[in-house]
């Protein structure tokens, strides 16, 4: 599972019906990127087509990042990868990934993720929830 292959592009699968997630996506998009980040709504036909190996329900539940080499990061790890892909945030990503901070990051991310419907507005209008 560990390889030395460089990750050159990442694709973020996010919950497009959640306002908070869209805000996060907008923020990520505006930051200068060291590694190009692409955004695809989780459970969208495109996501299903490109990543048939991913469970759509799971990608909707937790932020999922897929690397160009097929690497899959979920939840807090996915957030660390997003930060890592931004110019000038690699040091922060490295610090967050340390054994001291990773458990805390994991609990914060999981808390926000579980309460994201309450923390922002939530709409089902895009029809991207799993059938």
């Amino acid at each position, binding site marked *: *599972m*560990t*390889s*030395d*292959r*460089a*990750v050159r592009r990442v694709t973020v699968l996010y919950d497009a019906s959640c306002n908070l997630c869209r805000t996060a996506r907008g923020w990520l998009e505006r930051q200068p990127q*060291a590694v190009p980040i692409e955004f695809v709504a989780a459970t969208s036909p495109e996501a299903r087509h490109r*990543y048939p*190996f991913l469970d759509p329900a799971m990608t909707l539940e937790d932020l999922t990042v*897929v*690397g160009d*080499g*097929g*690497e*899959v*990061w*979920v939840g807090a*790890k996915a957030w*660390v*990868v997003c930060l*890592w*892909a931004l110019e000038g945030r*690699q040091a922060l*990503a*490295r610090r*967050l*990934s340390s054994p001291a901070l*990773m458990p805390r990051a994991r609990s914060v991310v999981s808390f926000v993720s579980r309460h994201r419907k309450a923390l922002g507005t939530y709409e089902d209008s895009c029809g991207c929830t799993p059938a």
Partner: protein
Amino acid sequence: MNHLAATYALYVLLAVPLTVWVGRTLFRNGKVFLLDVFAGDDDLASAVNSLLVVGFYLVNIGYVLLALRIGTQVTTTTDAFEALSVKLGAVALVLGALHLGNVYVLNNLRRRAVQSSRMQALHRPPVEPDAVWTPTA
């Protein structure tokens, strides 16, 4: 030999071995840093180490010789010891400053090498993926 000449002789006899001792310490221990900086290239590390130590000797022995002259009257043994202690104290301080400067430079070189190897690691995110999907034909 009068007191002044004896003081000069003693000064050179003590200051030069002191310089050599510090230089040898630098030579022995600097190698490890340089090997790290030059990624284990033994020849290059040895060459840079020798060059650094030669520079160190030249600067220090130059200082020792330039500072030889004692401006005060040295007529008694007490005078001689006082003059000698001032001279040797100055040599020790210069040696110490140069030595610490050398260690600082070596450490900076090393840190830069460590940082550039970290830059290599930047090509991969700091967290291992939860899964890797390898397309099967």
